């Protein structure tokens, strides 16, 4: 019970600090504060999708159904955080570029990422047999992950994008004010904790549902 309590206090602190302690800087004005929410959400989305991919590969190797449940939970959490990153990004884009959506390469790639996992859930709902569902959706997740590098890493680099980069590749510096950096890192830690907590609850629920199903079919 202590963990969620600490997490709650921590995140409240981050939210307050992002408005009062952190300076609004770097030519982005007040809109720059959204970095504290947008970037960690995107980071967690990538992390959760990566975990889903690892779980799917594990399922294909070993064929244990609990790995499939983990992949499903990770894909769900990834989608939630990916939606948050998309929405906060659109809000920021409205403030900085004047439009909620303008098909900047970053926006394109995140939209496609969301579509891939939407298709993943459609595929899961189309199959009844649990083993077949696990196997086919794992194959699809891995296949999609091979094309994701094109979208997330290559497309924004090749095509001209207006999206600001945190890490300056030309002189290897980190473009951030020190107070901003502190709040940003605290938020990153908070989001990661939030993800771990949500994952724990969600996986417990899925395991219980699975056991209930087993008991009913006996």
């Amino acid at each position: 019970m202590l963990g969620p309590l600490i997490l709650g206090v921590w995140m409240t602190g981050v939210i307050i600090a992002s408005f009062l302690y952190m300076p609004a800087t770097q030519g982005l004005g007040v809109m720059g504060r959204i970095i504290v929410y947008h970037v960690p959400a995107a980071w967690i989305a990538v992390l959760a999708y990566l975990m889903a991919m690892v779980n799917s590969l594990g399922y294909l190797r070993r064929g244990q159904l609990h790995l499939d449940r983990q992949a499903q939970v990770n894909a769900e959490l990834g989608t939630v955080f990916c939606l948050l990153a998309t929405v906060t990004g659109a809000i920021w884009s409205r403030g900085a570029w004047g439009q909620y959506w303008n098909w900047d390469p970053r926006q394109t790639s995140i939209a496609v990422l969301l579509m891939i996992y939407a298709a993943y859930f459609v595929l899961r709902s189309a199959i009844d047999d649990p083993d077949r569902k696990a196997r086919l959706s794992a194959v699809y997740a891995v296949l999609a992950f091979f094309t994701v590098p094109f979208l997330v890493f290559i497309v924004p680099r090749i095509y001209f994008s207006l999206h600001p980069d945190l890490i300056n590749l030309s002189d290897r510096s980190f473009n951030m004010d020190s107070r901003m950096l502190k709040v940003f890192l605290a938020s990153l830690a908070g989001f990661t904790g939030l993800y771990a907590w949500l994952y724990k609850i969600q996986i417990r629920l899925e395991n219980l549902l699975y056991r209930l199903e087993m008991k009913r079919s006996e």
Partner: protein
Amino acid sequence: MEIKPLPWLKQSLAVWRKDLRIEFRTRYAYSALIMFAITTLVTVSFSVGGFALDADISAALLWIILFFSAMAGLARTFVHEEEAGTVTALKMAAQPEPVLIGKYLFNVTLLSSLTVLVVPLFLVLLNQKVLLPGVLVAVLLLGCLGLAGASTILAAIVAKAGAKSSLMTVLAFPVLLPLLFAAISATRMAFAGGLPRAITTDLLMLFFYDGTAVVASLLLFEYVWNE
């Protein structure tokens, strides 16, 4: 997975020939592809009338037509095996990888014969000028290879999932989007001209996408095929 080039090649070609022969008997997949493409093409051409469209719009239209026609026909190869009950026989006759390669070759054949017919018709009906014909041919070739490459394993997944007809389009669209973006951008430049550097970038994207799709399918196909 052990790679044996020569037996694989022989088996793949055998699967390819078998599929071609079956297709020649009924011509079902090919007619479905062609009719779908012609229907959309006529609709577009009729509504546009005598006007010449912008290169942006006609490039997108061309790939919309090719993508949806491909979706109408490419799932057929594996769905047919499931319907006819010949899956077990094919499993016994050949390794999984040659089956995939054979089906891939068949889909490439199907798609390129569609493209050869539809693209000239498209250019005539929409009064589209082509400034760089060589680039257009390269884009169409790479695009067909990529469309077939990603669709073949998805067709196997759809066939195992009970051949639900709408599933193919839903699954293929996000996976094929990187290909479609690069293909549309390169086609636009083939129609209206563009910087050589930009064209090379798009063609390289297509090339690497094709390679990734085939390699990923080869690695994963075993899990779909053997149950």
